[in-house]
């Protein structure tokens, strides 16, 4: 195995010095990579996957130190190379693609300059030669009119195009290894499919090995040759892609696979198998298995650190119960979902009550830009005559890619932005969001849940205060009754009493989102506007929050408008779907109809770009309309 290995990592450790102590970000990992192989490092945030890639490139932050028994790349141990020799490896033999295409290119230099300087730094190519190669590669990565693009600056390109440029840049010197760190996470689903397709094609054509870092098991299934699952700085399981998905032997791997909704596989509306708890703090010394306090299969032996057991020639698992996990019986759903009794026919309540809880009639928002003194204004119709009805007690999913107008729509609904035209009806009554009485009436009936749990809670208020302030603003109850009500609500969303006097800075992302839900529900609204409520969360936490939302909907008879770009989540949680593009609803209908018999071509494109965690299907070939991308 080590003869044809391009890269061999033995016992790599990375420590970070933080104000709380030494954080062991990577704790002794081993892996190897063959020429032309695609290895996926998968794990949730904070598991050490990005740090691993930076350690390979020797680009760790100042407060980090790495050590390893071996870091052999093409037969040379990278640890023995000085900064100068390492610089020759970087960019020439080992290139990198980062997550954020919007910030990964230098805004002050042209694309041509940034592409060519890579080649010029490593070879004695002339500018003209470098330019020729840049044009050739830009065409390879599917950028139209490549030679003109060379004189453009990064801000003149869309995110998808910039990521293509980043790929071209990585290929400039024909490297043996490309490390791609979440290269498609910041992109829309259709663009993601295109970029993955491109990456896979180029990897085969140039026979380049790729280390692909991602948190998305759907992506892993479609592009990986081999997978390494990371948890708390360790590789807990490694296997060829098919084997891993068909026979996951680490409880964490199995948990990850079971906690994501998969259209056509998981039963819609049913609770998901969430992984309880949170990732442990990596400051301090490891005692035993890192996963054992979240593990349903844990035994007494887990107090001792398990070795990486070999289950097959290429299948390693770091678990004492390896070999018994994949065929163990399925577990009960997590406790936060228990309070609801789920009936098989939970979707579309049989009640003949068709009265809409929320109705939008020709809602329109026009932004007038450049309202300067001397410039003719021009308009953007962000939301264009959108009419929707959400029946009481049901949920409507609003899906679309970035810039389609879904967030503007939500802001108008919440009274955060006056509509240009059209009206909003709640339970048949027209609401005027611009006057304060109308806005007040609106706020007690409809509440939001936002995307980013880090910015949705005022850091200067305690958990209790965050929820209570809503009651105080509406002058509801006495201090005692408020204390009781807030306590009950926090209890309902699963916030233990000891957290009630903590500040948001002391909470995990999932806990924060629970507090945001409690705050939204404390005024007993009937409608929740959920704007991407789980897209900033790790998948195991996402399952917890989705379960909570399903339970609350059932228990409190809530109506949801669920805005998301994640179609799998939408399919799991909603009854009806509206697909939005360019400010208009292009298709709407029953969830099953949309997912099984989509009519509009854009809906079909969107559905085709869903990457379910099914290995062997490959990346769908989405015919991207390049012109819409500039």
């Amino acid at each position, binding site marked *: 195995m080590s003869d044809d290995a391009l890269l061999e990592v033995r016992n790599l450790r990375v420590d970070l010095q933080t*104000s709380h*102590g030494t954080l062991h970000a990577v704790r002794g990992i081993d892996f190897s990579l063959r020429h032309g192989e695609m290895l996926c490092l998968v794990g949730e945030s904070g598991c050490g996957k990005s740090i691993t890639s930076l350690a390979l490139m020797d680009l760790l932050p100042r407060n980090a130190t790495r050590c390893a028994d071996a870091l052999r790349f093409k037969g040379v141990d990278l640890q023995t190379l000085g900064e100068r020799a390492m610089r020759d490896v970087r960019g020439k033999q080992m290139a990198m693609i980062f997550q954020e295409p919007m910030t990964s290119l230098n805004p002050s230099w042209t694309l041509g300059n940034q592409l060519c300087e890579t080649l010029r730094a490593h070879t004695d190519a002339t500018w003209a030669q470098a330019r020729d190669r840049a044009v050739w590669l830009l065409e390879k990565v599917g950028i139209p009119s490549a030679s003109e693009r060379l004189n453009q600056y990064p801000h003149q390109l869309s995110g998808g195009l910039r990521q293509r440029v980043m790929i071209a840049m990585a290929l400039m010197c024909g490297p043996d290894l490309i490390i791609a760190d979440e290269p498609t996470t910041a992109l829309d689903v259709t663009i993601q499919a295109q970029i993955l397709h491109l990456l896979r094609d180029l990897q085969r054509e140039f026979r380049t090995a790729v280390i692909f870092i991602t948190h998305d098991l759907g992506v892993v299934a479609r592009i990986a040759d081999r997978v390494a699952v990371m948890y708390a700085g360790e590789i807990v399981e490694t296997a060829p892609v098919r084997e891993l998905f068909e026979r996951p032997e680490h409880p964490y791997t199995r948990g990850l696979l079971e906690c994501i909704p998969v259209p056509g596989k998981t039963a819609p509306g049913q609770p998901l198998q969430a992984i*309880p*708890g*949170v990732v*442990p*703090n*990596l*400051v*301090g*010394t*490891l*005692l*035993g*298995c*890192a996963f*054992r*306090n*979240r593990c*349903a*299969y*844990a*035994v007494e032996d*887990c107090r001792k650190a398990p070795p990486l057991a070999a289950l097959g020639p290429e299948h390693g698992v770091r678990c004492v119960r390896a070999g018994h996990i994949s065929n163990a*019986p399925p*577990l*009960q759903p997590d*406790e936060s979902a228990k309070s609801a009794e789920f009936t098989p026919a939970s979707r579309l309540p049989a009640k003949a009550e068709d009265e809409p809880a929320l109705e939008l009639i020709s809602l329109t928002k026009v932004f007038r830009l450049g309202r300067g003194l001397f410039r003719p204004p021009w308009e953007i119709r962000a939301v264009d005559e959108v009419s929707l009805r959400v029946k009481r007690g049901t949920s409507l999913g609003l899906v679309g890619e970035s810039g389609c107008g879904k967030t503007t729509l939500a802001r108008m609904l*919440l*009274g*955060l932005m006056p509509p240009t035209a059209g009206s909003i009806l709640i339970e048949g009554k027209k609401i005027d969001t611009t006057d*304060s009485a109308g*806005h*007040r009436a609106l*706020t*007690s009936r409809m*509440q*939001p849940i*936002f*995307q980013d749990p*880090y*910015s*949705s*809670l*005022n*850091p*200067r208020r305690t958990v209790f205060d965050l929820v209570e*302030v*809503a009651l105080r*603003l*509406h002058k509801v109850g006495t201090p005692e009754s408020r204390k009781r009500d807030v306590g009950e609500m926090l209890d309902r969303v699963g916030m233990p009493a000891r957290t009630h006097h903590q*500040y948001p*800075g*002391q*909470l*995990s992302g999932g*806990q924060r989102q629970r507090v*945001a839900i409690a*705050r939204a529900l404390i*005024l007993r609204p009937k409608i929740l506007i959920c704007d991407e409520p789980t897209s900033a969360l790790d998948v195991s936490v996402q399952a917890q929050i989705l379960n909570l939302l399903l339970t609350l909907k059932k228990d409190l008879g809530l109506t949801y408008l669920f805005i998301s770009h994640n179609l799998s989540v939408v399919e799991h949680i909603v009854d009806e779907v509206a697909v939005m593009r360019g400010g208009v609803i292009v298709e709407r209908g029953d969830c099953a109809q949309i997912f099984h018999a989509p009519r509009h071509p854009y809906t079909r494109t969107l559905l085709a770009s869903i990457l379910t965690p099914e290995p062997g299907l490959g990346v769908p070939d989405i015919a991207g309309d390049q012109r819409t991308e500039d």
Partner: protein
Amino acid sequence: MDSDGLHIPEVSPFESERLFDQPPAWRRLITRVLRHRGMMIGLAILGIIVLAAILAPVISPHDPYAQELSRRLTPPIWHENGGWTYILGTDKLGQDYLSRLLFGARVSLVIGVVSIMISGTIGVALGVLAGYLGGRVDAVINYFLTVRLSMPVILVALASASVLGGSVKVVILLLGFLLWDRFLIVSRAVTRQLREAEFIAAARSLGASPLFIMLREILPNLLGPLMVVATLEIAHAILLEATLSFLGLGVQPPMPSWGLMVAEGKAYMFFQPWIILIPGVMLVLLVLAINLVGDGLRDVTALDGRN
């Protein structure tokens, strides 16, 4: 959960699972302050000067206003002609230099703190309004800011002081109505950022009024950066007071002020350099200490963001 008789252990696999169980914020802040060397030095110097200013009537060896013309320009103790009676010597009127320094500290500190309280109130109020409301309000406030910045503080203060006559009260009012620009710039910038935060949208969705949002949601989040600005601006005000007094349009004699002491000593500095060096060094020490505290506050509060 107990499907096959197993349990989820409550203990963490790590010895120190502290991520979500941290000590309270103020305690972390104090720990960081204690570890910040520059800030500790600044706090120490500042503490001594503040203490000396408060205790000035008790510890001054002489009456700062008592003139003894026969002993004028006595050099300080380290000088060969110096003596223990006047440790830091006397000025051109024979007033004890040490006593005047101690009382001068009071003038500097009072003017610095009071004028910044005025300018801080103006600047923060305007900054939060401009940052939160934006649009026309922002444009108007920005126009006021440009007007203010296009007139140099020293020039305007000198011209106004010549009209109004120099005194402690005039200096405080002048600086109070001139030094709000930095408060405005900082509070507007931070408010603008916060305005986009989702918790402001959440508060609006709960029906909170703009006033409530500005006072209860935004202002508490401004405290950190504003404390930094306030300390640095106090230092700025102290320097300006010294400059005005040096130019003869600030604090008027016989009241002791460090800037004034330099001005009064200027004529004698070629032969008695200590006469300008002593008050100057005191000014440098005081302003340095305040700046160190301000920089320290910036470092210490900057870390107090997300985990």
